[in-house]
C-alpha cells in the first residue's frame, strides 16, 4: 500500500498520537503501508521553510528508510523560493513538493503559482496541493483559513505540459464536474482522505475513473483507519483496489522519471 498523504512534525493546534516520527513509521508499517509520501506540518506556517524541509528529509532517512518519502513544502510568496525547490530536488532527492496556497496567502491565479508549476514540470517533480488541512467550521478563531479554490486548476494544468498534480484533502464528490474536468487532463489525481458520503470512494471511481484516485490518509491529523475502511466500504474489485492503494502512485512516480 502507498499512502500519498502523511505529515511529520507537530500540528500547531493539537498534539497527535502519531506526531513522533518513530511511532508514525511503526504505525504505518503495522497497517501495511510500504511507502508514504510525507510532508511536514512545519511547512504550513513556518517562514524558515528551508529548515523545515531539511528536518523532513533527515527524519524520513532516520525513522523511515524505505518507507517515508519526503515531499518538501514550497511557499512561492517567500523571497527566493526557487532555491527551496532546487534543494528539495537536488539536495534531498525529493520526488515532489507540497503546497498550501491558502496558508501561504495566494490563489491559483497568482503568477507565482504558474511559475512554480513550470519549475516543477521542468524538474519532473510531482506537485501536491492541499486544499485544506481541517474543517474550516472548527478552526481556531484566530487562524481561520478558507479552502483553496481549485476551479482554475484544469486550465492551468492543461497549459503546462509535463506537470502532474495530486490534490489532497478535498471532497471531490462535492464538485464532480470539476473533478472530471481536472482528471480529463490526464495529469491530476485526487487522494481519498476527505472524500465523504457513504460508498464515496466507489462513487468517485465511477465519476473520474479509478486511475486518478490515490490512497491518502492525512495521518496523523486524521485516524489512519479512515482511509483504510473507505477502501473496504467501497467494495471495488481487486484490480481497482490495487490501482487506488498502490499502482496508481507507482505509475505516477514512474511517469516523472
Amino acid at each position, binding site marked *: 500500500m502507498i499512502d500519498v498523504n502523511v505529515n511529520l512534525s507537530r500540528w500547531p493546534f*493539537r*498534539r*497527535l*498520537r*502519531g506526531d*513522533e516520527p*518513530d*511511532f508514525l513509521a*511503526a*504505525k504505518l*508499517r*503495522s*497497517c*501495511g503501508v510500504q511507502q508514504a509520501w510525507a510532508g511536514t506540518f512545519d511547512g504550513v506556517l513556518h517562514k524558515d521553510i528551508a529548515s523545515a524541509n531539511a528536518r523532513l528529509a533527515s527524519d524520513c532517512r532516520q525513522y523511515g528508510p524505505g518507507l517515508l518519502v519526503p515531499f518538501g513544502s514550497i511557499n512561492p510568496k517567500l523571497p527566493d523560493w526557487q532555491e527551496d525547490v532546487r534543494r528539495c530536488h537536488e539536495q534531498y532527492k525529493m520526488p515532489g513538493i507540497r503546497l498550501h496556497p491558502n496558508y501561504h496567502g495566494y490563489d491559483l491565479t497568482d503568477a507565482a503559482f504558474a511559475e512554480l508549476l513550470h519549475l516543477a514540470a521542468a524538474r519532473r517533480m510531482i506537485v501536491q496541493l492541499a486544499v485544506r488541512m*481541517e*474543517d*474550516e*467550521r*472548527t*478552526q481556531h*478563531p484566530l487562524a*481561520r483559513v478558507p479552502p483553496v479554490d481549485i476551479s482554475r486548476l484544469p486550465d492551468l494544468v492543461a497549459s503546462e505540459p509535463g506537470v502532474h498534480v495530486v490534490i489532497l484533502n478535498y471532497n471531490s464528490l462535492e464538485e464532480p464536474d470539476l473533478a472530471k474536468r481536472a482528471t480529463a487532463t490526464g495529469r491530476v489525481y485526487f487522494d481519498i482522505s*476527505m472524500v*465523504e*458520503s*457513504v*460508498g*464515496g470512494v466507489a462513487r468517485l471511481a465511477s465519476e473520474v475513473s479509478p486511475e486518478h484516485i490515490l490512497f491518502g490518509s492525512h*495521518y*496523523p*491529523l*486524521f*485516524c*489512519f*483507519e*479512515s482511509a*483504510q*475502511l*473507505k477502501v*473496504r*466500504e467501497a*467494495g471495488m474489485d481487486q484490480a481497482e483496489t490495487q490501482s487506488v492503494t498502490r499502482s496508481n502512485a507507482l505509475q505516477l512516480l514512474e511517469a516523472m522519471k
Partner: protein
Amino acid sequence: MTRRTLLTGVGLSSAIARTAAQNGRALESARHFRIWDEHCHLGQIPGDTPEQRMTALVRWADRLGIERLLLSQGYDTDLHPTPAGFREENDHVMRAVREFPDRAFGSVYLSPAYPEFSVQEFNRCVRDGPMVSIGELETDRRCSVPEMDVIVECAASMQVPILQHAWLKIGGNEPGESSPYDVVAIARRHPQVQFVCVHTGGDWERGIRIIRDTENVSADIAGSNPTSGFVEMAVRELGPERVIYGSDVGGRSFASQLAKVLGAEIPDTAKDLILGGNLRRLLAPVLRAKGYRT
C-alpha cells in the same frame, strides 16, 4: 552515546513499535464488536424508494460489520419541513425499517416549531408505532425553547432517548440551529431523560467540555472529520459510558466515523460500549416494552 543509553533507546523503540502494531491491528478486531450505528439517514443514498435505499445502506454496512442502524429524518435535508413533510419522512423511515426489521430501528423526526403536531406524531410513530427514539431533531428552532418541553415529556413517558443535532460553527450557527449549550439547557430541565448531543457540537474539543457536567447527556461522534484524538478526549472527560458511535450516513461514510473508534487509543472494553453497548443500554427500556429481541 553510552551503551546504556543505546540499549534504553532500543527498548523504547521496541515499545513504540509494539504499541503502534497493536494499534494497526485495530481493524481486524472490528469483527469482535457488536456495532450499532446510532445516526443514519436515507438522504444521499441511491434508490427510488426507502426499501431500495435501505438495501444499499445494508450492503455498505455489511462490508464493515455493522449490525444495526438507527434511522431518522428520511430523505429530505429541508430544515423547515411542514407537518406533512415530517409525516412523509417518518413514513419513509418506517418503510425502510419494515423491509429490514433485523437490521434497523426507526427514530421519529419532530420539531418544537410544531409542539401539538409533534405529540401526535410521537404517538403515531413511537407509542403506537414501531419507532424507538426521538431525533435526530434538526430544525430551525433551538432545542432549549420552552416548546421543546412537551416533546421531552413524550420521551419521558416511554423512557426513550432524544438525539439532538448540535453544532458550534466558528463562523456562527444557522438561525435556530442548536448548540451543545442548548442541549445542556434542555437536559438540565429534564434530568430523568437521556439526551444525545449529536456531533458533540462538531467542534468537539469545546463540545465535550460543555456537556461534561451534565450527566444525562451523551456525546455522539458522528458527522465530522475523522480527527485523531476525538474519542480519546471524550472517553477521558466523559467516561466511555457517555460516548456513542454514529456515522451520519449518507452524507458521511460509515468508514470515516467508525475509524474514530477503531483507531482510538482506548481499551477494547470502551470500544465495545461506544460501538453499541451504550446505545443498547439507552434503548433497553423501549425495546423491552415493545418486545423487540436483539
